[in-house]
């Protein structure tokens, strides 16, 4: 008798609960077989401020609903009553963890609709800032995957280096979290003296971190047991559910805007995003780990290739009453989570008619997460959420 088979027989409950005729699971709470359980918003395992309404049977989730809106500030509405320049401080707060793509996208939308060319130097600086932003997110996000499985050590190390990167941001942009660096037409300053040297020191630490996180997490038997085979995203889900960035690349589908629709200076940089096909939590985390290395390498490349001096800002009309002709556009860039896009409609006035931000979390955290959580263990909700890199503020904005 194969003991393994008996275990599997009892652990495989994919057909559980029964599915009714309307395609929905039959869940009778009064049968005392199921328990309704909320995770979040006050829950350390939930990324950011959102909540999951789980129906569990034992430790297993049979139905899940995500509830968002705890961070809704109505940005898109607020931006409709702000001038273009005033949108910037507002806009960057749409995603707290990685605010720079917001800045870039809004600036790009404005530039594209009003036809402004950005100077060379500013483009390099923008690329640098975007990569630095990716670096600081990944330094938190990569070990954060271990954190969801209670391996907090890597998170501690990563966060320290992230803090150092934030110091570099502070030097360069004047802000620690909200940088307000990219403005329409260009950026707000050149590299300070000695920046490259200090950055290189930090990158060395990051290199060491990459190595040690590999030892700690990816070669960790327990982590492998937890993460491998968990929450597999089949390839056909990529388009159906809208899967972007590292999550799609873990499924073997190349989705990286930096490569497919190069923007800024990415066409001049040499990099190859990593893809794999396992598509489980481990693979997604591993893709991010490779991304981290790519990013470190890219920052080195950028710092080597960028010119020393140059114009940082193209002249713009007076920002106090800048009117942009009627039009609409969609621009996108690659955030650490995937394709990050902004759709802007202008109507010829000095305020945008409509701004819509599309972050990958919008699809990841709603339909995809709900789908992946079914038949998962309660213990894995946090791991799955983090592996999809959900960022609630970009869902509800």
């Amino acid at each position, binding site marked *: 008798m194969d003991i393994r088979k008996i275990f599997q027989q009892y652990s495989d409950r994919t057909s559980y609960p029964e599915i009714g005729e309307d395609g929905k699971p039959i869940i009778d709470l009064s049968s005392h077989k199921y328990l309704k359980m909320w995770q979040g918003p006050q829950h350390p395992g939930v990324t950011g401020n959102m909540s999951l309404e789980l129906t569990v049977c034992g430790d297993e989730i049979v139905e899940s609903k995500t509830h*968002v*809106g705890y961070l*809704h500030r*109505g940005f*898109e*509405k*607020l931006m*409709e*009553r702000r001038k273009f320049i005033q949108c910037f401080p507002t806009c960057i707060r749409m995603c707290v963890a990685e605010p720079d793509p917001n800045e870039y996208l809004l600036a790009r939308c404005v530039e*594209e609709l009003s036809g402004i060319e950005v100077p060379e130097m500013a483009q390099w600086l923008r690329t640098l800032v975007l990569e630095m932003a990716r670096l600081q997110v990944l330094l938190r996000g990569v070990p954060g995957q271990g954190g969801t499985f209670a391996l907090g050590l890597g998170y501690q190390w990563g966060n320290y280096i992230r803090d150092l990167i934030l110091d570099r941001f502070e030097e360069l942009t004047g802000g620690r979290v909200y940088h307000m660096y990219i403005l329409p037409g260009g950026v707000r300053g050149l590299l300070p003296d000695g920046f490259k040297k200090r950055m290189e020191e930090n990158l060395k630490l990051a290199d060491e971190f990459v190595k040690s996180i590999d030892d700690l997490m990816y070669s960790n038997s327990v982590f492998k047991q937890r993460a491998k085979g968990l929450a597999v995203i089949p390839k056909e889900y*990529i*388009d*159906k*559910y*809208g899967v972007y960035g590292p999550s799609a690349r873990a499924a073997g*589908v190349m*989705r990286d805007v930096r490569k*497919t*629709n190069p923007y800024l200076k990415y066409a001049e940089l040499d990099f190859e995003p990593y893809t794999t096909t396992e598509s489980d939590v481990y693979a997604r985390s591993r893709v991010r780990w490779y991304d981290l290395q790519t990013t470190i390498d890219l920052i080195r490349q950028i710092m080597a290739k960028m010119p020393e001096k140059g114009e940082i800002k193209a002249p713009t009309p007076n920002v106090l009453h800048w009117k942009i002709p009627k*039009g*609409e*556009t*969609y621009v996108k860039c690659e955030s650490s989570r995937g*394709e990050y*896009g902004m*759709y802007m*409609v202008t109507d010829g006035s000095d305020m945008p*008619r*409509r701004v*819509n931000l*599309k972050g990958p979390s*919008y*699809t990841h955290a*709603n*339909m*995809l997460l709900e*789908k992946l959580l079914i038949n998962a263990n309660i213990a894995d909700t946090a791991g799955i959420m983090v592996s999809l890199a959900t960022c609630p503020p970009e869902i*509800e904005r």
Partner: protein
Amino acid sequence: MQKIIQDIESRYSVSEKEIRRNNLCFLTIPKNQAISLVTYLRDYQGYSAFTLLTAVDWIEEGHFQLTYLLNNPTNYTEIGVRTMIERDHATMESAHHLWESMQTYQRELKEMFGIDFPGSPRVDEDFILEGWTDIPPYRRDFDTKKYAEETYFPRPGRETNDPAEYMKSKLFPND
């Protein structure tokens, strides 16, 4: 891009087209053809990835603009399908059968703009707001500043002066 647009124009009545970049264009289509075009693009033209669905409130003209933005993951181009729907009792055909992620967008539009998508799953559930009783907040006729000032409590003690007015009142009060 041009080829696809010509192809679409031969099949659907495109009333307006705007080519923004060589990989992005917007087409305006009558309401009843929109879902058909989206399906066509998805199934026959390779626009299999759905990027976003959003609405724009053209209150002056009395209609909502719905934009379905589709992405072609093989040649990396994007087509925005725009359609205009009546602002009063706004209703649109649901497209949740095309992409799973669509129902989230439709839920959001229902809540934020009040556009109904009959048949879309969970479309009536609260998505972002909770217990909202005012008009849908993303509509242009909803004044968020006024609402905020009436509902929340702005801290008193703020007063400002317009430089021109202030100088006028101080320097030549009799004018």
